[in-house]
């Protein structure tokens, strides 16, 4: 059993945190993340090189200011955002994060899949909010590639949960073929 409370890594700056990210070889790992997620109205961080995540509305209103910063910027979306409305406006971002307000609200799974499969989003897709270890494998198969766990949740348990299954009946965003097209 993993220790339920994960010791915090020494922080490089306020707001840096440990998350799980699927690495280049498709292997999830625990990494230090520097993205600063801003609620509308929060000032930009004084450290100009830090990348920021802003809401879609703010990104569109304050685009010149965002472009002016040294750090790059990404967009966070509500879990119930309408992919038809938002997809074209986020496609060019390196990072899109989706807010999971309550883990039992499964709308964000459809949003994630559609962003990937229908609209072709290629950047990093992150879940944050009420993100619990036991849902990570579903999220990953819907196209998420990084996970900021809910406060107090063990990243090590998260990694173990991501490893729970080696087979699935359904296709996923990387390989759409269901098992019946892969069996043999």
């Amino acid at each position, binding site marked *: 059993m993993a220790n339920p409370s994960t010791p915090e890594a020494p922080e490089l700056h306020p707001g840096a945190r440990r998350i799980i990210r699927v690495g280049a070889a498709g292997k999830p790992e625990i990494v230090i993340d520097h993205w600063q997620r801003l609620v509308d109205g929060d000032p930009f961080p004084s450290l100009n090189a830090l990348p920021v995540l802003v809401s879609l509305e703010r990104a569109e209103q304050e685009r010149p200011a965002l472009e002016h910063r040294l750090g790059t910027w990404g967009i966070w979306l509500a879990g119930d955002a309408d992919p038809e409305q938002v997809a074209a406006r986020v496609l060019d971002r390196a990072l899109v994060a989706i807010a999971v307000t309550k883990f039992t609200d499964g709308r964000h799974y459809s949003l994630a899949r559609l962003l990937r499969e229908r609209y072709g989003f290629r950047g990093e897709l992150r879940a944050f909010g009420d993100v619990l270890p036991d849902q990570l494998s579903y999220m990953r198969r819907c196209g998420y590639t990084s996970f900021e766990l809910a406060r107090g949740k063990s990243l090590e348990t998260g990694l173990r*949960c991501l490893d729970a299954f080696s087979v699935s009946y359904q*296709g996923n965003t990387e390989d759409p073929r269901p098992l019946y097209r892969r069996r043999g």
Partner: protein
Amino acid sequence: MYRYDHYDQVLVDQRVAQFRDQISRRLSGEITEDEFKPLRLQNGLYMQLHAYMLRVAIPYGLLSSDQLRKLAEVSRTYDRGYGHFSTRQNIQYNWPRLQDVPDLLAELASVQMHAIQTSGNCIRNTTSDHLAGVARDELVDPRVYCEIIRQWSTLHPEFAFLPRKFKIAVTGAPTADRAAVRVHDIGVRAVPGRTADEPHGFQVLVGGGLGRTPRIAEVCREFLPREHLLSYLEAILRVYNRYGRRDNKFKARIKILVGALGIEAFSEQVEAEWAQIRDGAMQLTPEEFDRVAADFSDPDYAALEPSDLFVQSLALSKDRALGRFVASNVLPHKRPGYSIVMISLKAKGKPPGDATAEQMELVAELADTYGFGRIVVAHEQNLVLPDIESRHLPELHARLSALDLAEPNIGKVTDIIACPGLDYCNLANARSIPIATRISERIEDLDYLHDLGDISLNISGCINACGHHHVGNIGILGIDKQGEEFYQLMLGGSPSDDASIGKILGPALPSAEIVDAVANVLQTYVNNRESADERFLDYVRRAGFEPFKEQLYGQPEHA
């Protein structure tokens, strides 16, 4: 029946390991009960009044004799030596301990069984016709499609947290719905191709259900080519996942969404979504149809002479116990010389749907001796031996009688569907089982029982309607009135091709009066029917409620 290959087995084994890990985190305190609840529910584990309850999936009700023996063994090792067969063709254990559940599930995995998605707000066990594969009126074997749906829905990553639970039923008999498809979230009906050379396809119904807001499903698509079955289901689920209500759990089922949008607008949304995915990788392949269908091919039936006349003569036998049993519990088989035998789990005075380990083991043995080792669970909470050589019927009847499994009441008013009610259930408002046992004890004259003909009587202990009271010809709903158990009486429901929702007859009655009231309703029918050929349901539909009301509530001294 379907046999797991390497992939199926690995997935079920890994699910056991995952649940073992989840349970150990709950016991260690790493996760709270609130976090654990959805995890345990998605693996069929409830918290009831006295203990945990584990609901084990029996996909479309089909069991091998080895599986049934394992269910019996598990009930002895980890429970109290019995199990409860539910209205969704599953089995429930009422007394497991949390730390034993992983071992119990590992035992089940060794015979290709699991508890995946038997609860929770996800796609549940797909149910079907208990006569699938052996009925004379079947167009196609629905189990092939049920298994394909089972695999698609198992651990589906997008649909694990739907607004509410989701139930799919499939029937392969276009003129004899025994799977109650019109009261499911999605009902799939096999229908013939539109032209002579087109293979069969499906009519897809959506938005049916019981519970607080009973509703009959409507047609979402008249004809769906079979290779598109999964992409169409996926389109419906995606529309539901995105737009179903999440603000109020009592309005979260898909029937509410279908009702709010209207079936036309709902079906347009589904069609628009489907158009985007229908020609993608989800299209079912001929190889997959063949692979799954091969597992459902007929067993090695012997070439026998037709036995219909022989069975009829048994029904008239001087041995009245045998005669009654054959008349009510034996159904015609598609192959000459064979019969379908229904085993009633509604013996007089016993909880509907309960079976002891000894009974399960006997049924498994009889399936091996007289059939091809197959058993089916019917949604009416009975068991079926689908392939019995008719010449063995007298012997089989004698063997069943020895363990109280030969109650001759299939389809009769004492073949009662009942939920566990307040004797076990955390949600119930009133008890169901004692009402069922009292009714079965009251109507003990078997000649009278058979004279009443086919009548369904369904009892639920609360508005969630697990006992399907809305679709019983007679429905009983338990309610709590200032701490006292009262029961509402409903008439006129049906789950079949002529599906209808029953209506309340009059004021609710206290527990002490409800059995008399049922007897009164039955006698009113007997006194007024046109002939013995007029079924109870037909009489209710023809005569309305007045004769019943007059007899039941009209007299000052009705008790």
